[in-house]
């Protein structure tokens, strides 16, 4: 199903034409209206007339989260506040949040983009959709909210928290689709079970998940927990919020709304643009944004791009599910470790729960990784041998994938923290004195 079929199935040549036209507009708009970009572009010797073809984008300097922070709060806005109708900010865990602003036109584009990806996974005006993202400065909730209203779905703005009530609403309202982080959906399904609410009593058929990465294995757990079809969408407040890209029913990558975003993948170290299919950091340029346009924004998310048309008929480029973030990457004894690699191993194991925690310590000059998992299989309790064997199995599987040894700790069920927003599963204690 399509929300804007003509655009979503445009021939590639037309997409590139449109992107070039809009890239020229965006560069000129930034150059003329935003002192920060004027200086940045001038320093790099890029004037708007230098952009003749799409690959000329490589001459434009990158923009980072730090640039947004340094110009806090409104320094990167392209319009006076009189024309800004909404402000959002990212969950800045360190220091000042990153602030973004939207013109009325931006909000309209935003809800179109979200409406497209909701429609692509089969959401219709028949659906009752519960949004269990926290409402507020965070873009997730309101982004999905307006997109879903646009397609005529019945929106239940449940926000996050009070999980028992969330389950009650799912059941009593006959909610058919759920918007949340995958980890919160998983927790909600646990709570539903504790409350004695079985999947037969629920009408949930569709999950629209986002705001945090999740491995295919984790996704299967969520699907099993609620008996629904789980789909991913992707975005970030710096670029717009949710709606940058999303899966279709075929789930073979996330279609990027290329009429509004120009995506590149770069080598995170050298900054070189990589070819189609090569894995690297996603860099996105907004093509129509007025409130806070972004030139070559470094997302820190790691993915690959594919340009061949999808079975669904969409011609927009697809990005693979992100496999981690450049800043998620743990360097343990010199080895690059992504938490998603560990998650894939853990979730494939039957005797432990889907929740986990990774603790990195420095002991002497040595980094150590502890993987904490919840033991749920009571049949292993009959003798120690079985428990030890399981620890060994996990250890050796992790060693195969990561190439390093780690310590595996079995802990009691439900003793790891459950998350209502983005899960925080990594605790890095290095550099904290005698950690």
């Amino acid at each position, binding site marked *: 199903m399509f929300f804007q079929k003509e655009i979503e199935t445009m021939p590639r040549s037309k997409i590139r034409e449109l992107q070039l036209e809009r890239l020229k507009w965006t560069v000129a708009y930034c150059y003329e209206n935003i002192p920060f970009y004027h200086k940045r572009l001038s320093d790099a010797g890029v004037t708007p007339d230098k952009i003749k073809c799409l690959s000329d984008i490589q001459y434009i300097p990158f923009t980072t989260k730090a640039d947004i922070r340094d110009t806090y709060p409104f320094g990167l806005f392209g319009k006076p506040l009189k024309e800004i109708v909404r402000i959002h900010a990212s969950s800045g865990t360190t220091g000042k949040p990153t602030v973004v602003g939207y013109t009325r036109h931006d909000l309209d584009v935003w809800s179109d983009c979200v409406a497209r990806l909701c429609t692509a996974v089969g959401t219709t005006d028949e659906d009752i959709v519960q949004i269990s993202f926290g409402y507020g400065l965070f873009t997730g909730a309101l982004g999905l909210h307006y997109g879903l209203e646009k397609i005529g779905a019945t929106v239940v703005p449940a926000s996050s928290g009070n999980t028992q009530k969330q389950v009650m609403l799912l059941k009593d309202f006959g909610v058919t689709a759920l918007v949340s982080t995958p980890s919160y959906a998983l927790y909600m399904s646990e709570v539903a079970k504790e409350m004695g609410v079985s999947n037969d009593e629920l009408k949930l058929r569709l999950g629209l998940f986002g705001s945090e990465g999740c491995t295919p294995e984790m996704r299967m757990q969520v699907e099993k927990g609620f008996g629904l079809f789980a789909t991913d969408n992707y975005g970030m407040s710096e670029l717009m919020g949710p709606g940058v890209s999303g899966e279709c029913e075929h789930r073979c990558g996330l279609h990027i709304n290329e009429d509004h975003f120009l995506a590149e993948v770069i080598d995170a170290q050298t900054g070189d643009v990589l070819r189609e299919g090569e894995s690297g950091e996603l860099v996105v340029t907004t093509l129509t944004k007025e409130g806070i346009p972004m030139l070559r924004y470094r997302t820190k998310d790691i993915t690959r791009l594919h340009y061949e048309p999808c079975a669904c008929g969409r011609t927009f480029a697809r990005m693979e599910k992100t496999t981690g973030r450049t800043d998620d990457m743990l360097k343990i004894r010199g080895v690059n470790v992504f938490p998603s690699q560990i998650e894939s191993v853990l979730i494939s194991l039957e005797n432990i729960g889907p929740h986990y925690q990774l603790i990195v310590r420095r002991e002497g000059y040595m980094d150590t990784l502890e993987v904490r998992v919840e*033991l*749920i*299989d*009571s*049949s*292993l*309790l*009959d*003798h*120690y041998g079985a*428990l030890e064997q399981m620890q060994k199995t996990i250890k050796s599987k992790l060693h195969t994938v990561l190439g390093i040894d780690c310590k595996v*700790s*079995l*802990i*009691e*069920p*439900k*003793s790891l923290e459950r998350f209502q927003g983005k899960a925080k599963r990594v605790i890095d204690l290095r550099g904290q004195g005698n950690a």
Partner: protein
Amino acid sequence: MTINQLSVFIENRRGRLAEITNILKNNEVDIRALSIADTKEFGILRLIVNHAQKAADVLRAEGFTVALTQVVAIGIDDRPGGLAAAMEVLRDNEISVEYMYAFISRAEDTAYVILRVADNEAAVRIFTENGFKVMCSDEF
């Protein structure tokens, strides 16, 4: 002729035993025997109680991982060599013990041994044949 034993997975954290025993107290479960084996990080608490199924249910409801296993309980003479006699029988019949624990009873001259072996039926038969008293649940 076997009895129900609870195995509870517990992390080595302060207060966990107090929590478990309080849950049992609040549900009026009486503990007959217990054994705890531990490693540095976690332990397995093994319990013989008056209402095994109920105890398992309430502990599971509180989020514990609990297994119910059938084990063999025998009565032995409470005197030097009492346990040795029982072990000899097992040795002679090639039955190996995975774990066991013992406690003395209210009766002065008897002690009880709880045994986890691979083949309960064989152990019960052999103990009976050799004159040991094999206990059933209501005898505790």
